[in-house]
C-alpha cells in the first residue's frame, strides 16, 4: 500500500533514469536529508553531536568507500584504515606546508593522495583474488602504520608523532561549534553519497559489478579488469581518504597513527558486512550499528542493573558490552547474512503488499 508503484507511468527517458525512480523513495530521501539539516540541529544536544553523530557520519562515509570496493567490485580489503591514515596525514601536510591552503581543499587533496596510494596498493588485485588479496592489502596497513610512526617528515617533526589541526575555515565560516561540525560532515556525506549513487548506476559501477560477479566473463564481454579494479581501488580510497581527513580534522582535532590502526580496518569491514554488502544504505546501517550500539550498551547496562537491584561496576559493564555486541554480530550474520540493508529491503517489500500479502 505504501510502496505501490501502480499508476506511476514514466513517459520520458529522463523520468526513467532518475536516481530514485519511485516518488515515495525520492520524497522519503528528501525528507530525511531536510530533517538531518534542519530538524536534528534543533533537537539534539552537544553530546549527541560530538560523541555520536559526527563519528557516525564520518564512519558512514568510510563504510561507503569500503562498500564500493568490497560490495560492488568484490575486492576484499583489510587496508581501509591505512587509506584513512593516508588521507588524514596528507591533508595535514597540505594544510601546514602550503600557506593559505583552505581546509576543505586540503581534505579533498588528502583524498586524492589516498586514491593514488590506493591504486599502488591495489595493484596486486590484478593477480591475486579473494582471501589472498585480503592478505596483500594488509601490507598497505602495516606499511602506512610504520611510515607515519617512523618518518618524521609526515608528522611535521612533532616530537611525539602526534599532530593537531586548529579550527577549519570554509569561506569565512569557522567550523568550531558541534553544530557546525555536524553540518560540515553532513554536507560532505550527502554530496559524496549522491556521487556514489550516480557512479554506481553508471558505466563505471556496472563494470565493477560485472567484475564482482565473474571477472572472466566480464573480460570476455569487453570490460578491462585492470581499469575496472584500479578505478574501484582509487574511488574507494578517495572516499576513505576524505573520511580519514575528516576523522582527524573534525572529530579528533589531534591524532596519532593508532587512530587508524588495523582495528579500524576490521571495524570498517564489519560495518559493510553487517550493514549489507553492495547496498549504499548498508554503510549507514553498519556505521550506526558499530558506532552507536556499544555506547548505548555502555550507558544502559548500569541502569538496567540498577533497576534489577544489581550493582554493575564499570569494568563489568565494559565486559558485558563486548559480549552482547559480539553475540549481536553473530545473530545478525546467522539470521540475515545479507546485512541490515536486506532487512530494510524486506520491510519495504512488506509495506508494498500490506495489508493484503499473498
Amino acid at each position: 500500500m505504501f510502496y505501490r508503484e501502480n499508476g506511476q507511468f514514466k513517459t520520458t527517458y529522463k523520468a526513467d533514469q532518475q536516481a530514485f525512480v519511485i516518488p515515495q523513495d525520492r520524497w522519503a530521501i528528501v525528507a530525511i536529508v531536510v530533517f538531518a539539516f534542519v530538524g536534528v540541529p534543533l533537537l539534539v544536544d552537544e553530546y549527541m553531536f560530538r560523541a555520536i553523530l559526527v563519528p557516525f557520519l564520518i564512519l558512514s562515509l568510510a563504510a561507503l568507500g569500503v562498500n564500493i570496493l568490497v560490495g560492488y567490485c568484490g575486492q576484499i580489503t583489510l587496508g581501509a584504515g591505512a587509506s584513512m591514515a593516508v588521507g588524514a596525514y596528507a591533508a595535514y601536510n597540505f594544510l601546514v606546508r602550503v600557506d593559505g591552503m583552505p581546509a576543505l581543499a586540503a581534505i579533498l587533496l588528502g583524498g586524492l593522495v589516498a586514491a593514488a596510494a590506493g591504486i599502488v596498493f591495489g595493484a596486486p588485485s590484478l593477480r591475486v583474488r579473494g582471501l589472498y588479496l585480503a592478505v596483500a592489502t594488509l601490507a598497505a596497513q602495516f606499511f602506512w602504520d610504520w611510515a607515519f610512526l617512523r618518518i618524521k617528515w609526515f608528522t611535521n617533526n612533532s616530537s611525539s608523532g602526534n599532530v593537531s589541526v586548529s579550527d577549519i575555515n570554509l569561506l569565512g565560516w569557522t567550523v568550531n561549534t558541534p553544530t557546525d561540525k555536524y553540518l560540515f560532515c553532513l554536507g560532505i556525506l550527502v554530496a559524496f553519497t549522491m556521487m556514489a549513487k550516480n557512479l554506481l548506476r553508471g558505466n563505471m559501477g556496472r563494470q565493477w559489478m560485472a567484475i564482482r560477479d565473474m571477472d572472466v566473463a566480464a573480460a570476455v564481454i569487453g570490460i578491462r579488469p585492470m581499469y575496472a579494479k584500479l578505478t574501484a581501488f582509487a574511488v574507494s580510497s578517495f572516499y576513505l581518504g576524505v573520511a580519514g581527513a575528516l576523522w582527524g580534522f573534525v572529530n579528533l582535532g589531534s591524532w596519532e597513527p593508532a587512530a587508524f590502526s588495523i582495528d579500524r580496518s576490521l571495524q570498517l569491514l564489519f560495518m559493510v558486512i553487517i550493514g549489507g554488502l553492495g547496498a549504499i544504505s548498508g554503510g549507514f546501517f553498519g556505521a550506526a550499528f558499530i558506532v552507536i550500539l556499544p555506547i548505548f550498551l555502555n550507558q544502559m547496562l548500569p541502569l538496567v542493573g540498577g533497576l534489577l537491584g544489581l550493582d554493575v561496576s564499570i569494568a563489568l559493564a565494559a565486559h558485558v558490552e563486548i559480549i552482547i555486541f559480539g553475540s549481536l554480530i553473530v545473530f545478525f550474520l546467522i539470521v540475515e547474512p545479507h546485512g541490515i540493508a536486506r532487512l530494510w529491503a524486506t520491510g519495504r517489500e512488506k509495506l508494498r503488499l500490506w495489508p493484503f500479502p499473498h
Partner: protein
Amino acid sequence: MKLRKIAVTVSLAAIGLSAALTAPATFAAEEQFFPVLSFRTGAYAPNGTPWANGYVDYFKLTNARGGVNGVKMIWEECETAYATDRGVECYERLKGKHGGATVVQPLSTGITFALTEKAPVDKIPLITAGYGRSESQDGSVFAWNFPLIGTYWMAADVLVQHIAKKEGGFDKLKGKKITLVYHDSPYGKEPIALLQERAKMHGYELSLLPVAHPGVEQKATWLQIRQNKPDYVFLWGWGVMNSTSIKEAQATGYPREKMYGVWWSGAEPDVKDVGDGAKGYNALAMQHGAEQGSKVVKEILEKVHAKGQGTGPKEEVGQVLYMRGLISAMLAVEGVRSAQARYGKGKRITGEQMRWGLENINLDQKTLDGMGFGGVMRPVQTSCLDHMGSAWARLHTWDGKKWNFSSDWYQGDEKVLRPLVISTAGRYSEEKKIVRRTAEDCKK
C-alpha cells in the same frame, strides 16, 4: 509471538530508560563533580585499575573527612579502554553532568592530546599528573593543562642525573651507550627530545628501540641490545610490555641493575609475575613509591575500606599505581580548596575558577603532614607560568618482593628543561596562533 512481545517490551523499556537518562539530574549546589576516565579493561587494565581505585578512594576519604569546607565530592566513572575515541566520547558524556565537570584527568597521552584542543573551549582544566605532554608545563601557552608534579621530560632528566651520579659525574657519561626501549606511541616518544638534548650536552650515545603495541613481541629488540651491549637501558614501557621486557632481559642475560624504568614501568603489576627475575630492576618513583606505611593509607583503610566502601581489593591499597591515583585525586581536591579560598568557601567551583585554584596550589610540608602525605611527597607550589609545581623525584628498586627506595631526591634541571619547554610550547603557540598569557592575564 512470545518472542515478539519480549522484543517490544525490551525496546519500550529501553526507550523509557533513555528518556530517564537524558532527563536533567537535579543537583544540590554544594556538590563538586569529577568525571573519572579509567581503563579497567583491555591490554592495560592491570595498570589502569589500581590507578582508578586510588583515585575514587581519595574522593571517598575526602567525603568521610567532611568534604572541602562542607562541599561533597561526587564522581562518575567511564571506561575508555585506553582508546582515544572512546575517551573523547566519555569526556563529552560527562563534562556537562551535575552542573559541569570540575577537572578532567584523561590518564592517556593520546586522550590528553585530543582534549587539549577542547579544554579551552569548554573551560575545563586537565590534570595530567606525571604524564601527558611535557611542554604543557608552560602555563602561558597551555592555559588549561596541568602536568602536576612531573612530566616525562623531567623523568628522563632525573634518570640521566642518576646514572651520571653513579658514574661519578656528567663528564663520565661521554662515550657511554644508553638505549631507550619505548612503547611506540606518543607516550613512549615523549622522552626522546630530552634524552637527545642531554646526549648533545654530555656526549653519550643514544639508541632508540621502539616496541609495537601491545609489546609482547620483543625478541628482535633484545637481540639488538645483546649485540650492542648498552651501558644502561631506559624502559618507557606500558602494561604487559614491562614484564615482557624484564623477562627478555633475564633471557638475554642483561643485568636488571642497569635497567631503569619510568614510573609507568615501576609498579607491582610490572614485576610481580617475574618475581626474583626482576630483582635489582630500578624505576623512577615520581615523588612516591609504594606507601603502605603512610598515614593517609592507614586513614583510608580505617575510614573507607573498614566500612566496606573501598574500591578494589584491600591488599592493593598503598601500591605504587594506587598511590598515583590517590595523589592525582588529592591534587584535584586541593585545587578545589585553593579555588574556594578565593571564590567563596563552601561553594561549588566552576571549571574556570578551578583553573585559578590549580594555578595557586601551595602545599607546604606542614599541610602535607596534616593530610597524611608526610614522607610520601614533597611540597608543591604552582603558578600561572609553571603548571608543574614540583620537579622532584627519586628512584626505587625491586627486591623480589617489594619496591624499596634506592636513591636520594633529585630535582629536574631547570636549565635543561626550561628552554626545551619554552621552545616547544612556542612552536605550538605559533601553529595554533595562541597569544601567550601575560602577567596581567594571570591575575584574572
